[in-house]
């Protein structure tokens, strides 16, 4: 009767509340009433047992055994099970009419066994009743929590839901603890703990999954995708990750429906922002306008970095390692259908900014970036972009400014960086450009012609670069780098860029040979080879002449004057270089045997 009255009063008090709220109140009242009832039962139960002893129905020992049994199997918070008065007495006389104690104490079918059986039945019956009420309350709490979650757009909106779920958790008491304190396994994804007792059913697991998204430090809610796309973009990752793990909260129909609705609005918003950018590209836009539009799209970008996890403070829930669960595949699965195009548009923004600033170096770098991402744009837009970046020149002037390395930086370094940064497909020999970068790096570190693997390949790569209008800047950089390396190996390098590098190199080579600085001459040839400055025949001729001079000098040092003279004479008969001829004439005369030397007329 008390229970009924409580329910009525509860229903009356919440006439204006939502159905979920009303159901929760009703289940709460029912549980409270049962708790009171079961708590009273202990006293009644003990009194009944004492009365049985007085009447001689059973002994004091049997009474103690019954109390102990009830104590062991009683559900927490449930008190002692007891039906209407007189039932315990009836237990002494089972259906077969056999008197209690007639079959002896040690017979399994003895009255004592029958008594225990009765206790067990009573406990089971009341346990089911309690379990049903508890589950009813838990699901009512979860329904109410979901109702609040559906309306929540901020973390504060979920405070009431957290309280409701917390109260349900309290009712489960020991069984909740047993379920959540399931021993941890070493794997990232653990088995969900099974209910610790028969009467808790599946409700505990459901409740755990509601608690760990709502009643935690960083509760999961879906911000309005139109008003807060950035917040929603972060939340949707978590949601999708949980969904892929079959998290029970994400399987609630209303919540899942809400996510799908929000997701549709979010993706539509992202598509709108993208269309606005595409439209701006097609119709022509300024960098500032494009940047503004890009900021809108950036709101929809999938956030980078580690995902936010779930509560690690709440008792029990921390054992379900959601941080581990959220790593890897669930997130990777998002990338294909998520708006992740900001990066591609950013490359175009950089190009627009470089174009407006007239910075040729930045423009070349930006163009390269855009070309790499071109395939990511819709076909028509990609065509438009390609046309833009191909035809455009810096606004600042028709003549691109000279390419300078960074202030105080090295032209060789800039060249190495530029060559190494040539994207695949920019010319037919991307690996050639990488090899060139390595060779220039060697030159910077003092490498000689012997360190060049294949000078001929260098020239071929430069030819390919020359045929690509987008790589034209490299030639000015190459000449500067060559002058820089030339300066490091001595000799005077003309300040004026008007003197062509090939002329400077030839002059330097002649000067080095004339001064018998053969190492320097070889390094000059290495620069020439790395830059593809001299023609192949010229390069080969100079190289073999240098080798012949070295060889002849070696013969002289080893005392093989005849061999040395033969080598020098060979040089004299073939060289067109005045410097080589001068060196050879001098050396030839020096190696002449004095006795054989003819007297001058």
């Amino acid at each position, binding site marked *: 009767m008390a229970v009924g009255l409580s329910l009525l009063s509860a229903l009356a008090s919440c006439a204006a509340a939502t159905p979920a709220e009303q159901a929760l109140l009703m289940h709460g009242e029912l549980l409270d009433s049962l708790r009171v009832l079961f708590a009273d039962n202990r006293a009644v139960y003990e009194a009944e047992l004492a009365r049985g002893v007085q009447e001689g129905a059973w002994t004091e020992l049997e009474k103690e055994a019954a109390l102990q049994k009830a104590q062991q199997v009683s559900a927490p918070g449930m008190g002692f099970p007891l039906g209407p008065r007189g039932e315990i007495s009836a237990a002494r006389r089972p259906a077969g009419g056999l008197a209690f104690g007639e079959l002896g104490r040690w017979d399994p079918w003895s009255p004592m066994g029958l008594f225990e059986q009765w206790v067990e039945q009573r406990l089971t019956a009341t346990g089911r009743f309690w379990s049903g009420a508890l589950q009813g309350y838990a699901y009512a709490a979860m329904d109410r929590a979901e109702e609040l979650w559906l309306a929540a757009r901020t973390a504060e909106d979920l405070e009431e839901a957290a309280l409701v779920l917390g109260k349900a958790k309290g009712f489960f008491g020991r069984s909740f603890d047993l379920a959540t304190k399931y021993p941890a396994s070493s794997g990232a994804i653990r088995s969900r703990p099974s209910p610790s007792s028969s009467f808790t059913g599946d409700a505990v697991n459901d409740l755990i999954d509601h608690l760990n998204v709502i009643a935690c430090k960083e509760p999961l809610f879906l911000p309005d995708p139109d008003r807060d796309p950035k917040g929603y973009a972060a939340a949707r990752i978590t949601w999708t990750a949980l969904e892929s793990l079959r998290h029970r909260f994400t399987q609630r129909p209303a919540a899942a429906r809400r996510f799908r609705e929000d997701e549709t609005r979010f993706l539509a918003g992202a598509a709108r922002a993208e269309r606005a950018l595409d439209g701006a590209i097609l119709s022509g836009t300024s960098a500032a306008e494009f940047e503004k539009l890009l900021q809108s799209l950036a709101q929809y970008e999938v956030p980078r970095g580690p995902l936010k996890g779930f509560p690690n403070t709440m008792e029990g829930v921390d054992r379900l390692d959601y941080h581990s669960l959220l790593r890897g595949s669930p997130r990777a699965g998002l990338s294909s259908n998520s708006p992740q195009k900001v990066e591609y548009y950013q490359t175009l923004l950089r190009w627009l900014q470089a174009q407006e600033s007239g910075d040729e170096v930045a423009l070349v770098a930006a163009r390269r970036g855009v070309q790499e991402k071109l395939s990511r744009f819709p076909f028509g837009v990609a*065509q438009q972009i*390609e046309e833009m970046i*191909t035809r455009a020149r810096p606004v600042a002037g028709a003549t691109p400014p000279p390419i300078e390395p960074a202030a105080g930086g090295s032209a060789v370094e800039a060249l190495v960086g530029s060559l190494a940064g040539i994207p695949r497909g920019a010319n037919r020999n991307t690996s050639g450009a990488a090899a060139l970068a390595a060779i220039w790096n060697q030159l910077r570190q003092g490498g000689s012609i012997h360190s060049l693997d294949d000078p001929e390949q260098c020239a071929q790569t430069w030819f390919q670069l020359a045929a690509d209008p987008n790589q034209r800047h490299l*030639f000015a950089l190459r000449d500067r780098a060559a002058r820089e390396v030339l300066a490091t190996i001595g000799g005077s390098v003309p300040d004026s860029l008007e003197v062509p590098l*090939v002329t400077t190199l030839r002059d330097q080579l002649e000067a080095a040979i004339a001064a018998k600085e053969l190492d320097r001459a070889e390094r000059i040839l290495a620069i020439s080879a790395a830059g593809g400055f001299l023609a192949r025949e010229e390069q080969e001729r100079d190289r073999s002449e240098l080798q012949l001079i070295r060889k002849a000098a070696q013969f002289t040092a080893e005392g093989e004057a005849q061999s040395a003279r033969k080598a020098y004479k060979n040089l*004299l*008969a073939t060289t067109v270089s005045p410097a080589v001829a001068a060196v*050879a*004439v001098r050396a030839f005369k020096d190696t002449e045997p004095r006795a054989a030397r003819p007297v001058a007329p």
Partner: protein
Amino acid sequence: MSNTVSAFRSLVAVITAADSGDVSTTQNRIQEARSSVQKLDAKRSAEYEALLAKLERAVVENAAKAAQSRLDTLRARLAAIKEPVALEAVAREVAGWTREVRARSGSEQENWGQLAAQLSMLAAAWSAASPVLLQQDRQMDWEAARASYAGEVRSLRKRIERDVLGRTLRLPELNNAPLNEKPTEEALDALSNDLAGRSEWRRLYQLLEARAGLQGLAGRIGQDDALPALRSFFAAQNLELAEQWTDAVQAYKAVLQAVSERAPIKAAAERLKALTKEHPEAFTPATPNAVRRSSAPELER
């Protein structure tokens, strides 16, 4: 109803694309519109189909006109180019045309990609004053010889050659009067003759060698024998300095075998006369090696 709306939308898309002047997109839109129009009733479908066919013809004709106009403009621009920067700009622009051709399934016949590469190569050679790049361009020039803009490119190349040779070989007279008023080949011939007349053999050798490199295989086949004669002359001078009179005499004699008017025949003959007096012993037979060396130096390497 939905078919009508769809057809109407596709027609609007065609008109919008046609207004933009993008032939490729317009043709795509026309194809899409045809599919939509076919879903309408027969009478309307026929009307719209006729409209689309007319539009398509106009688009193709306009594209052909635009292509011709572009070619004319290109020729004029190539003829007017005075500096590498202007050439680079044209190369970049033409590189953009390459992609347009691809998008139109090759409706234009010109190989803009090849032209862009050639112009880019020429621009690089010009701005870097690189004879090596000009040599490389010579190979591309052969491939592009039959293009409708070949004449303009050839003329441009000649201008670049003159400038590059003038700068790298320190021949400022090439770009000064009276040579600057002559066509490149004529100016180079005149300068070569002038250098030979002034006995500036080193400069002459450099010029002839550079020209031979720029002219490629055809140039080498048709060139006179001044270059080998000059090489023999230099060898003879070297050997004379080393007091190898006999070998020097042989090398000078090799010069005399040349038929080119630019060969240093007179200078070689004078040295031989002098050596006859100074070193008569050098005119005794033997030492054929020196002759062979000087006339075919590559064999010695």
